[in-house]
């Protein structure tokens, strides 16, 4: 597979890698992030850095009212938040089946 070599070539060119380009397409999309203490945050994907820290815009915090599931969830608005990569346990985006398929196919080119 010439993936790593191609990646190297792309970087030398100054253009971004495939993964970065795909990730950029996800910007402003609705993202769901799970946290170590069991909470979830849903918001618009605003920014991510090399360490994997993510900023969500207009985020809503979800958490269950009991430790044991299933239990009803409470939610409240928290605005602009930064989720350090160390606390992140899961990351999903809200997209149509078509988009999912195209994301999967683009991803496999790496």
């Amino acid at each position, binding site marked *: 597979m010439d993936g790593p070599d191609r*990646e190297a070539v792309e*970087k030398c060119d100054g253009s971004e*890698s495939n*993964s*970065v380009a*795909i*990730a*950029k397409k*996800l*910007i*402003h999309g*609705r*993202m*769901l992030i*799970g946290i*170590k*203490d*069991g*909470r*979830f*945050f*849903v918001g618009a994907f*605003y*920014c*991510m*850095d*090399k*360490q*994997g820290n*993510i*900023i969500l815009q207009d985020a809503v915090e*979800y*958490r*269950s*009212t*009991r430790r044991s*599931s*299933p239990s009803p*969830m*409470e939610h*409240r608005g*928290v*605005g*602009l*938040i*930064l989720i*350090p990569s160390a606390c992140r*346990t*899961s*990351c*999903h*985006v*809200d*997209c*149509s*089946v078509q988009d*999912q398929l195209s*994301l999967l196919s683009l*991803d496999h080119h*790496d």
Partner: protein
Amino acid sequence: MAEADGGGDAKAPLSSSIPSGKDTAWFDVSSLLHRACHDLQNDELITGENFNLFAAMSALEIMDPKMDSGIVSTYYSVDEAIENGAAPIPLSFDRTSDIQCVIDIMDHFLACEATWHKGGSLAQTVFSCTYLFRPERTSSHALLHSFCRVIRATCSALVSAVSDARTNEEEDLFTMAYGLPLKANGDEKCLSMIHAVDETLCRQLKACKAPVSKKTVLEDIEPLQTHLDLEEGFCKAVLCRIRFRKHFYHVLTCLRKPQGRGLELAKKHIISCLSELDSMLNTEEFLRHNSACGTVGNEDEKTTASGCQPVGFDSTLNSRSAAPTPPRAIKLLSWKKAVNYFQKLLHDLDVICSYPLDPVFDGAMRFAVDVQKFQPDLVARAHIQLLLVQDGKLYGRESLFAVICKAALLPEGAKNHDIQKTESVQQLGQLLVTLFRVLCANTAWQRRKLGKILQDWRIIYVQLELAFRKEFGEAASTPVEQDLLLTVCKHILIWVEEQTYWIALRFLMLGFELELYSTDEYCMVYWYIYIILIKLAEKTHLKIMLSNDSSRRKSKKKKDFVKDVGKDYQVPPVLQLLQCYTYVAQGLMMLLASLRNENKIFLCQGPFNSEHERFVQHFELLQKACLPDHASFFSFSETVTNIRFATVSMHNCFKDAQKITKDLRGGFANDPDRLAELRQIEQVAEHNHVALNLLCRLGSLEPSLKISFDFIHHPHFVTASVKRS
């Protein structure tokens, strides 16, 4: 497979509780993002087109305790806490322990409430008690149930009072409930519940104190708890606590009665509250001695009389309800300090209730200013404000226009004049309301606002002048109408000018209380105070003369007019007092100027600002409002440059002030506050006179002399001390 950890856990709630969009689903992108991170350069970010790094910096960091108020600590929710036994009912199956726990809860509530009044959030203080949620839970425990209800009702009444007063200072987080259950159904019946509990306790107390022979009759009364030898102590401890709550709630409801009708009754309840607080303090030894937990921790920090930790309190449970971001960490006041806080609050409320509510402007201003001497806290100040202006009237009784007419020394009939309907006059009324509100604020906020409204008062003067001219041209047709309108306009305008200078004076004086001036700035400050006082006295004098002229023209015939002018006129006490202040300010300015010019001390020099810059910093707002016209750094410099100790007139300033204070004693004979003020000014004048004489004799000949200025006798006028070092 590069699934993120906990991906399995994420799936269950995803499908049910956090729905995706229409025709969309949640798609795991963690591995994609992981690869993207790998490919990014070190300083590269994945962002959109409108990305703003500065805005991004304001993001709250999740799992940082200072920024994330939702971090799960003990329990996920109040319900979970209750299910896990954090707030048991009853608190103990042993009735003695149960009562001990309830007393601890009552004490801890007091500490929480005082902390809340002092600026803590409701969620971290009063509503850190799990028993306050789900009120139906406590219904089987009459004592705790009625107590919780009265706590909620009290807090709700206070939030309402402070919100209505709109004391929007830094303490505005005080009223934010953020969805906490401040009101529950049935709370309005709290007093009758407390009363029932009070009656039961009285019977229990009577029963335990009754001699053995009578005990057979009272046997049907179940004692409060199981240790009969401790029954009296516990009954008394509980009784004084619930009675305090009852009387305190009454104080709050009486204070809110319109037009101050409830003040007399409020005073009675205040006395009862203070008595119950004393009783509570007296129960401390008994409770500590018979506590279930033994001696714990720091005596000064304990939040209960017994020293035990109370059951059912967890301030982390409601951190999500505190604010969008976690509030700053607070420390609960100790129980003793909480009692002291309530004692002070009740004292301040008592002072408020003792004021005669005579709807006269000067009286109301003095009320607002004098109460501030006790440095009342937010709750007391909110109540002063609510009392002063109700339904747009002074004390809810007198319309603002009527108040202004009276203050401007207009005849009684003027208050019905149509001029009050003009927009400018109505705006003047609003300015008056704002002024009262500002005077009820804390000192720092008050000074800031006073500085800002100076411009408004200057502008309203101009607007009133224009409006009056228009009315004169349009509405007043007959000579009688014109004459009346002219009188009303002249009086109101001069009164507006007088108040503007009063505000300027208060603005300057509050600078001393807030320690905003350094000693080498006193010279310019006293100079400014001196020129403001001159203008204030001038306007007051004009107002009085105008009023004398108006009344004289009506009552006297022309031939008697000239004869009476000289005979009748005596300087009114209020003017004499202003003259006195003027002399003291002038004297201090000249004393400080001489020291600068001859001894070269208290010179306003520094590496950062020139004296001119400092002058502008302190007096910018006054200068912008042209108060007074032509006052400038140049005129200040011109005045002080040539002042020397040898300047003869200087010797008379403090002496003249002393003379006036002696003359005024008769004028203020029935006013103890004014007499006290006079004594203070007299002391200032006397001591400064002595210091001045000493300095005149020794002058710059003795370099070993140490001269200092302190507020020994008066909060706004310094006294000079001359010592050998």
